[in-house]
């Protein structure tokens, strides 16, 4: 088009005093923003291609670069904001559905930030986690209602299969295809070292990663990509993906350009063909149908693997979770509306689903009210950003948290939210070999281990301050939480008192 209505969103600012024209920025930018002008003997940039991934900024040896938001603006309008107008221009030019990546960036309420945690003072002692034992280990799976003994008085141990985690955090599902081989390798190695689990996502499990099986959750999604008997038996648990927080009710579409070589073999589909995951599982239209799939998978793995059912947090989540808890599933994973994605229609991502905090509180309450809370473990995800978010989630009733965005940040992601282009400069959301190699799993797994070790320390500190010495004693302990700036209804749903009460 001769006239582009959209002015570039970012400006590349180069400090000419500092630029030594080493051209590292040029070599590292897959978007081809930077170039060396031989006539002018200096580095130049085409900011219209910049996605603000900060790769050049991070690698510039003299810190000569910064990327800033362009202050070129349309006339201010509170109703028709710049972003809204740009989206209209984009669609008028392309005729297409807007695509976005990673989590919802809109200023929607973050309930984690409106919840405060208690601490012990005077009447009950805090615990110093450096001096006293502190248990962060959790087991996920169906728990028996009561202890049963045989005629000799020995405990009958018929505990259903469990997933053991050294801390209540798991890396959530990201498929091989949506993220790179090296990203998967980093997650797998870190999970193994940490004693937690990562999740294959729906793209199957690469043959090189079967050795990390004990720390892997294998996913079965609507496209059934890469699902076979050995795959099901490889993992610590099997997850049926019904929905995803970033795009509830929407399937997936991995473009054929990303179905290359190993990805094609792992997914068991021809190279270059689009991998389309249908919106529904075509064999599941009711809880009874779900039950059939849950028991098919249990049958296939001789009842040795816990089955997780993952759903997006939507309006009737409590009733849905109640149904899942009765379907034979061992673990329910709920993904909130701020959860990330490799690509989703913008309108869906930004407007569909509900916050995970409210979903979690209402599901936990519903399952307790119905006396079936012990039938399942609850795992929540969808923008769990820190150790304090984890502590708040557990106090609201979760058994563990799923994290993915935080894990990708540890691997180098700068949240530029352009995964859908497949040109990730950090080697994460790409299949281009020259970009994939930028993520060295030695470094990636080390950074993940560092992050989780730090969070574990923080969880122990926060629990210690509360005078609590195990995750078990924190779970569902809403007395440890208070709301600030929340209305009566929000407090009622969360099941917590307001600060000062």
């Amino acid at each position, binding site marked *: 088009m001769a006239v582009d209505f959209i002015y570039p969103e970012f400006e590349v600012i180069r400090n000419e005093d500092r*630029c*030594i024209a080493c051209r590292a920025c040029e*070599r590292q930018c897959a978007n081809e923003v930077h170039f060396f002008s031989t006539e002018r003997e200096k580095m130049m940039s085409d900011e219209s291609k910049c996605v603000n991934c900060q790769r050049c900024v991070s690698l510039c040896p003299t810190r000569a670069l910064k990327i800033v938001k362009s202050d070129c603006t349309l006339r201010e309008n509170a109703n028709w904001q710049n972003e809204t107008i740009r989206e209209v221009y984009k669609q008028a030019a392309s005729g297409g559905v807007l695509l976005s990546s990673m989590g919802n960036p809109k200023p929607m309420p973050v309930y984690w930030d409106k919840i405060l945690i208690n601490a012990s003072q005077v009447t009950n002692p805090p615990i110093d986690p450096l001096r006293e034992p502190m248990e962060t280990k959790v087991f996920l799976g169906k728990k028996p209602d009561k202890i049963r003994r045989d005629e000799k008085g020995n405990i009958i141990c018929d505990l259903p299969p469990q997933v053991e985690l050294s801390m209540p955090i798991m890396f959530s599902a990201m498929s091989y295809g949506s993220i790179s081989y090296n990203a998967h390798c980093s997650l797998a190695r870190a999970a193994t070292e940490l004693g937690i689990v990562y999740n294959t996502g729906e793209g199957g499990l690469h043959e090189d990663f079967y050795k990390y099986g004990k720390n892997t959750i294998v996913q079965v999604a609507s496209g059934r990509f890469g699902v076979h008997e050995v795959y099901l038996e490889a993992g610590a648990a099997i997850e049926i993906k019904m929905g995803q927080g970033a795009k509830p009710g929407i399937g997936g579409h991995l473009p054929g350009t990303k179905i290359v070589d190993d990805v094609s073999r792992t997914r068991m589909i021809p190279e270059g063909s689009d991998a389309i995951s249908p919106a529904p599982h075509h064999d599941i239209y009711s809880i009874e149908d779900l039950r059939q799939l849950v028991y098919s998978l249990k049958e296939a793995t001789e009842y040795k693997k816990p089955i997780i059912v993952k759903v997006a947090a939507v309006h009737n989540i409590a009733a849905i979770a109640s149904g899942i808890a009765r379907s034979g599933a061992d673990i329910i994973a709920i993904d909130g509306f701020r959860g990330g994605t490799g690509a989703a229609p913008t309108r869906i991502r930004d407007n569909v689903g509900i916050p995970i905090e409210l979903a979690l509180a209402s599901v936990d309450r519903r399952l307790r009210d119905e006396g079936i809370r012990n039938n399942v473990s609850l795992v929540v995800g969808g923008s769990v950003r820190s150790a304090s978010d984890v502590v708040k989630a557990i106090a609201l009733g979760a058994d563990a948290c799923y994290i993915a965005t935080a894990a990708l940040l540890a691997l180098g992601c700068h949240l530029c939210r352009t995964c859908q282009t497949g040109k990730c400069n950090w080697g994460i959301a790409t299949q281009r070999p020259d970009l994939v190699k930028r993520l060295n799993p030695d470094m990636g797994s080390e950074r993940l281990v560092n992050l989780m070790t730090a969070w574990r320390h923080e969880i122990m500190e926060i629990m210690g301050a509360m005078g609590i010495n195990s995750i078990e004693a924190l779970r569902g302990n809403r007395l440890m939480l208070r709301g600030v700036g929340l209305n009566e209804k929000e407090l009622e749903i969360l099941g917590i008192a307001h600060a000062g009460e």
Partner: protein
Amino acid sequence: MKRVYVNEEWCLGCHLCEYNCAFANSGLTDMAYALKGKPIFPRIHIEGNEKVTYAVSCRHCTDPICVKSCIAGALSVSEGVITVDRDKCVGCLTCVLVCPYGALSPSEDGIMQKCELCLKNSCGEPACVTGCPNKAIVYEERGAAN
């Protein structure tokens, strides 16, 4: 002894090692002042093509042919590290001819220079290693080199 090794699997060909090397050996404290607008003479070089790249610097051979061939006695081995005596070098380039790795090159003034593991400058550890963004260049013990 510890040597500089390159894992080409992780080398991105970003050439930052060359600039870090040139800066480390410039004796200056400001990288932009040291390197801006000048040709650089690093002691490590990126080789390769569009598919494979890797950094090449002195292997610090146990039985170094460059030291044997030096007509001026400018090259010597000290605790395993091969060093150049700038006062003795006559710039005959014989060492360039014999080095099987192409690790030696003339400096700005024609006197030979080569990687001396940043032992003589203020870095302490090879600057190419500490500055490599993908840990493609490592400084470690792997037994004797040929």
